[in-house]
């Protein structure tokens, strides 16, 4: 697929409905007879949608985009996907940045969490306040490991990192309050080792009812940390005690139970 700038610009104008008819007919013939040119058209469609979402279109282009381009239900669906995809990429940059920016361990390091939770200018004040709050937390047996609130339009995400060891250390079940503004709860299951290619996590209520199953889950690593991210719609987590059984995939449909995690939604 050898696309020149002139070609790309023509495709872009074609999509916006502003390419002269003669050129449009020529370009359409190419779309119909060349796989590469047709794929180029599909790519250009997605790129145009991304530019629209990032506010990179001129005023005139924006008008053509909404009045012409977006008239098709298929493209409206593409736009919806692009919005979700953009949110995901943004969240990934915040939560799981690329090596060249900052690592997940840095993102969840003690100082980083303190700064996020207690955004005071003085480190001493931050530390003192943090100590008081930490004692209160322990006193009330709240083990909310991390709360990373990611404001993304209508969606707030709550990250609950769970480690079996930590739960045992405190002798308590992790407790969490899911406020109304939280739409996604992301369970981060910390792993002691990574011995399987994929994992299954089954979430059950206190009555043993299966609430959610995450299959073919893959381990994320960052430095020495290994964890599985497991996102749920917040709406399914009513106040109750929950237990997650994590299993490693052996063969075919065989799984081996590895460990359990538990938490309470208040």
């Amino acid at each position: 697929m050898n696309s020149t700038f002139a070609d790309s610009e023509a495709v872009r104008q074609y999509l916006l409905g502003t390419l002269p008819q003669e050129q449009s007919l020529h370009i359409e013939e190419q779309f119909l007879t060349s796989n590469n040119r047709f794929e180029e058209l599909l790519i250009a469609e997605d790129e145009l949608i991304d530019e629209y979402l990032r506010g990179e279109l001129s005023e005139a282009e924006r008008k053509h985009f909404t009045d012409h381009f977006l008239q098709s239900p298929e493209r409206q669906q593409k736009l919806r996907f692009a919005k979700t995809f953009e949110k995901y990429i943004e969240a990934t940059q915040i939560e799981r940045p690329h090596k060249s920016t900052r690592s997940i361990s840095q993102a969840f390091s003690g100082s980083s969490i303190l700064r996020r939770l207690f955004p005071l200018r003085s480190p001493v004040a931050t530390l003192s306040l943090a100590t008081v709050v930490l004692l209160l937390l322990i006193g009330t047996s709240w083990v909310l490991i991390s709360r990373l609130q990611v404001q993304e339009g209508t969606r707030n995400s709550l990250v609950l990192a769970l480690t079996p060891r930590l739960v045992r250390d405190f002798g308590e079940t992790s407790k969490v309050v899911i406020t109304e503004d939280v739409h996604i709860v992301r369970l981060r299951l910390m792993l002691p080792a990574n011995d399987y290619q994929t994992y299954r996590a089954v979430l059950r209520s206190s009555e043993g009812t299966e609430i959610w199953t995450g299959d073919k889950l893959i381990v994320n690593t960052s430095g020495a940390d290994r964890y599985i991210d497991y996102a749920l719609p917040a709406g399914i987590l009513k106040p109750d005690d929950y237990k997650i059984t994590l299993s490693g995939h052996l063969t075919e449909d065989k799984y081996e139970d590895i460990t359990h995690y538990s938490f309470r939604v208040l």
Partner: protein
Amino acid sequence: MSDKWTLTREPFDALLAWLDPDREQAGQKYEDIRRRLIKIFTCRGCATPEDLADESINRVVRRLKDIEEVYTGDRALYFYGVANKVFLEYLKRPPAPAPMPPHENPDEVELEYVCLERCVQHLPPENRELVIRYYQKEKRAKIDERKQLAKQLGIALNALRIRAHRIRVGLQRCMQECLERQEAS
């Protein structure tokens, strides 16, 4: 576009035979032509691109006996010529009302996100890394990141662009299937 004539087995087989002697190849060509006609009608702002594409195909099938011996060019372009006539007729009709923009339900948005996240999780690690790195960041940083990524993979920027797009298309399909499964359950 209401055309009462419907494509039945026999003329459809004849169409496939005209497109390619190998039936599997012919089926692929048929799908490609239909998909591209739909896209062209969409790009022209037609409200019913699928119907117009099917109407174009039906007309070709009906003329098949007259053209199969004499037409020598690219088959797809014959469909294109017919599609242009169908389009001109479409323009003479009263315009269809513009579709309502879809209402965004926060619950659906939330579910879409969860589905997408799962789909990304199921990608092979190298594809996951590629698609996240390709689409992350803004403007200059994005360009630099893509150059670096292409260099790491030992491929040209345009090849990277195609690869990232194919993964993205797969993710969109996966998310859609996930949503449909959720709806069904």
